[in-house]
């Protein structure tokens, strides 16, 4: 029997497998950020251990830092500054290369990894962040780990892992106009549930996936974790190779040819069997919007918020009721037309240049609604520079969006970008948990073009009507 892509990568990285113990998995690239690393470096210090492979470790700052342009470090909140300083000190002490906010290269860890060419097919990639699944878009086995595990990888370049199961997600058909990768993944999670992928690694397959560019593939793999999966994978192909070619850490010269011929073998064999499968027809999809407090609670723009009485499972009913109470939405209401106070375009899901171009095309020549506060936060300094070179920043500014520096920003509200109590946020991020974007904030997850349309109309809008 053949192997799945996941099994090929897994098998190539197991360096020890003792009877009755989890596998010891070798890690090719370890990404580090300021929030989940300090306690791991402290462990190394306590035990007198060095970082085993600083050359496979890449650090940046993204979560805690403010993204207001011109925000001086002296004016930062104390705790953000403390974490940034701790990361600088740890990187200096342990010789880990740091992409500092002071430098040219910096941004959300899952945006800069691929941008620098660190992310390559067939690799194992980890980070103390659940959206490490993003890198799976390149056919890398990439997943989030806790801080204890960050310490293990720093010290040994290895992790102990039990083998997950495999789950094929087949996306057939072609996407319609105005329907994006974000809608595919929101539809998958709405169908399979926020816990539906627990214990599994998704492999996204099928013509609709093959047709996507790398930014869109990253959007999909990014939210694998929202579907409960440990990781998400897309087999590498010409689209992948041409994205990587020429990037800072990409193989060069002869090495490039060698690498590509190896990468071509990284596909699921014809006769391989997945533990589970799910099929979705992309041509039947419409833009998606979440109404609830977990990413599985989403409907299409033409849909309505469900009614508790229509749900069979009492737990689901209660979950819906709690979500609607928090969100201030009514059972059975159409999602289209829902009032919006804030629009956030950014996060590791949707802050790449392609996302900003698409949103700018909607914003161009229009105005953000008077009652809406809208911000655009590029994923990295490189995205920001590229957008500015293309004049996207001006398009956004003229339309009334605020243009920001690179970082996580209002995706998790641990910096000073917070949505106020009770505010509705049309957000391109990945989590609509209670309070995620600020105490009492109410997130409506959607694609960048849907968010831009919500900004100009001041309410949830079917972007296809204004394309």
């Amino acid at each position, binding site marked *: 029997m053949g192997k799945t892509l996941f099994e090929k990568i897994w098998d190539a990285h197991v*360096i020890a497998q003792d009877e*009755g*113990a*989890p596998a*010891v998995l*070798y890690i090719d690239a370890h990404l580090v950020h300021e*929030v*989940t690393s*300090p*306690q791991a470096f*402290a462990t190394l210090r306590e035990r007198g251990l060095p970082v*085993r492979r600083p050359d*496979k470790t890449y650090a940046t700052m993204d*979560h*805690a830092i403010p993204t207001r342009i011109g925000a001086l470090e002296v004016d930062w*909140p104390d*705790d953000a500054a403390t*974490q940034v300083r*701790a990361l600088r000190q740890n990187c200096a002490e342990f010789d880990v290369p740091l992409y500092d906010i002071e430098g040219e290269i910096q941004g959300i860890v899952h945006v800069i990894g691929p941008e620098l060419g660190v992310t390559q097919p067939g690799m194992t990639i980890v980070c103390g*962040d*659940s959206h*490490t699944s993003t890198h799976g878009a390149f056919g890398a086995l990439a997943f*989030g*780990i*806790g*801080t*204890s595990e960050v310490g*293990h990888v720093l*010290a*040994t*370049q*290895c*992790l*102990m892992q*039990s083998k*997950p199961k495999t789950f094929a997600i087949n996306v057939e058909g072609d996407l319609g106009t105005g329907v994006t990768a974000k809608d595919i993944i929101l539809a998958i999670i709405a169908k399979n549930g*926020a*816990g539906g992928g*627990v*214990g599994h690694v998704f492999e996204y397959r099928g013509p609709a996936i093959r047709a996507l560019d790398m930014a869109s593939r990253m959007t999909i793999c990014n939210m694998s*974790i929202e579907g*409960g999966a*440990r990781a998400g994978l897309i087999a590498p192909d010409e689209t992948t190779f041409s994205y990587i070619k020429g990037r800072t850490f990409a193989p060069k010269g002869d090495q490039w040819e060698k690498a590509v011929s190896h990468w071509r073998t990284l596909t699921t064999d014809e006769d391989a069997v997945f533990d589970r499968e799910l099929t979705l027809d992309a041509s039947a999809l419409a833009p998606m919007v979440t109404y609830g407090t*977990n990413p*599985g609670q989403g409907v299409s723009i033409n849909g309505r918020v469900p009614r508790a009485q229509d749900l069979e499972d009492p*737990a*689901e009913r*209660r*979950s819906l009721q*709690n979500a609607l109470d928090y969100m201030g939405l009514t059972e059975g209401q159409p999602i289209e037309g829902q009032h919006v106070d804030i629009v956030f375009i950014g996060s590791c899901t949707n802050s790449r240049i392609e996302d900003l171009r698409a949103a700018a095309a909607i914003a161009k020549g229009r105005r953000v609604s008077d009652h809406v506060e809208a911000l655009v936060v590029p994923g990295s300094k490189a995205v920001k520079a590229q957008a500015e070179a293309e004049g996207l920043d001006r398009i956004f500014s003229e339309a009334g969006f605020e243009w920001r520096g690179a970082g996580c920003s209002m995706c*998790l*509200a*641990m910096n000073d970008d917070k949505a106020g*109590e009770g505010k509705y946020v049309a957000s391109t991020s990945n*989590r609509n*948990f*209670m*309070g995620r974007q600020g*105490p*009492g904030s109410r997130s409506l997850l959607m694609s960048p073009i849907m968010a831009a349309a919500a900004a100009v109309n001041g309410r949830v809008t079917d972007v296809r009507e204004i394309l």
Partner: protein
Amino acid sequence: MQPFTTLTSTALPLRTENVDTDQIIPARYLTAVTQEGMGDGLFSWWRYSRDGSPNPDFVLNQPQYQGSEILVAGRNFGIGSSREHAVWALTQYGFRAVISPAFADIFYNNSLKNGLLPIRLPEDTVRSLLDLVEEAPKTSICIDLQKQTVTLPGLADSASGITETSWSFDIDPFRKQCLLRGLDDLGYLLDKEDQISAFEAAASL
């Protein structure tokens, strides 16, 4: 890591599904550079009113559940972020075990690395346990990791629909040994140095 062998305690019922890590510990508590102080942030959205005073309606603030070391929760506990701070918040508050029909993978893993025992029991069982501890908060629950059992000592039958008083749970045998002995992975991994070096040499990494 504190070893886990047996635990007898009352349990705190949290009848909520999909409890995410942002609910367990909001991002504003993640600014620390040490592990300390997380217990105060546990469930902070629910636990405190907007003015910072304890919310009397939230179960964590109810007198009958003070001192409970077992948390019983709805399915998909710990979804969301990889923040180990969520586990630190639970352990620093005083929890030593969480019972739920299903856990998110990263949370489950993080728990095992901090001596917090995550126990998966069938949905019906968890529902009965929730009913029971809501009705009779003084009920003791006994967890024996060696035997992999959850029992209700002294409770043969009850009106709450519980027909058996002992359930067994699954746990990876290696993880079980680590918990019983209070060992973490780092020592084990450091012992693999020869294999790690050999792998790197072979792959010319």
